[in-house]
């Protein structure tokens, strides 16, 4: 059931991305291009819709002692706003701005968007593996 729920969550996530228009890097870049004179605010509405629903859903879930198919919740308790967090976010932002793909749309595009998109996803995985290979920055994939 845990695996089936995760697959369903991924499916709904992918349909939501497709409907929202955010699988098109041009639309994402249209949001990021605030000085271009043709600003596309669509992404704000995607994020707003997602955060609103998730905030309500998460609030209700936290009334439970544990999730349906696990013994406990696995939520990050990190609070540090440190150079690692901000440096990582800045690196990610540069990559996002260069092409218009963040990880969700990059993975969701593998099945339909052609070779260049698949190469982006592969390079992204390569970057993740490179991070894991560096001893001074152990990965916390959770």
């Amino acid at each position, binding site marked *: 059931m845990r695996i089936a729920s995760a697959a369903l969550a991924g*499916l709904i996530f992918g349909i939501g991305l497709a409907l*929202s228009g955010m699988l098109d890097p041009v639309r994402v870049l249209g949001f990021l291009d605030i000085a271009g004179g043709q600003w596309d605010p669509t992404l704000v509405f995607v994020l707003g819709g*997602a955060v609103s629903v998730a905030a309500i859903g998460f609030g209700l*879930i936290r009334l439970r002692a544990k999730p349906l198919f696990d013994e406990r919740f696995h939520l990050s308790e990190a609070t*540090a706003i440190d150079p690692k967090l901000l440096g990582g976010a800045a690196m990610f932002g540069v990559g996002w701005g260069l092409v218009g793909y963040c990880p969700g749309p990059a993975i969701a595009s593998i099945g339909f968007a052609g070779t*260049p998109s698949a190469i982006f996803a592969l390079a992204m995985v390569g970057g993740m593996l490179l991070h894991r290979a560096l001893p001074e920055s152990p990965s916390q994939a959770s």
Partner: protein
Amino acid sequence: MIADFTPVPALIGGALIGLAATLLLLATGRVAGVSGITAGAIAAPGPERDWRTAFLVGLIFGPIVFAFFGGELPRPLLPALPVIVIAGALVGFGTQLGNGCTSGHGVCGLARLSPRSLAATATFVAAAMATVFIIRRLEGI
């Protein structure tokens, strides 16, 4: 002037993403951060890979199901290959170093009112906007 603004599908699509994150947290107790799930699907210990792989398979099939029911998918035009590779590597490395991406920090972290996720989100949006600004100036558009 505003181009291509589609607020209604954006809101509904966004709501579906929020619903997916809610379902994942309810069922597995995990946050729907695509970068963390992807990295974990490759490198986590055996049993922890399964649900992550299932989520990613669902994510890949989502747009295909959407198209099956008549939805329109983009045919993306990406920049030159070296740019794609460098950008992909930056996204992969950066999301691991910063522990999250648009979904983990941007959607789930903001929904949890996490100041850390807000700082990360503000940083990657600002860096991405600065990158687009510089690139478009270089291109002379």
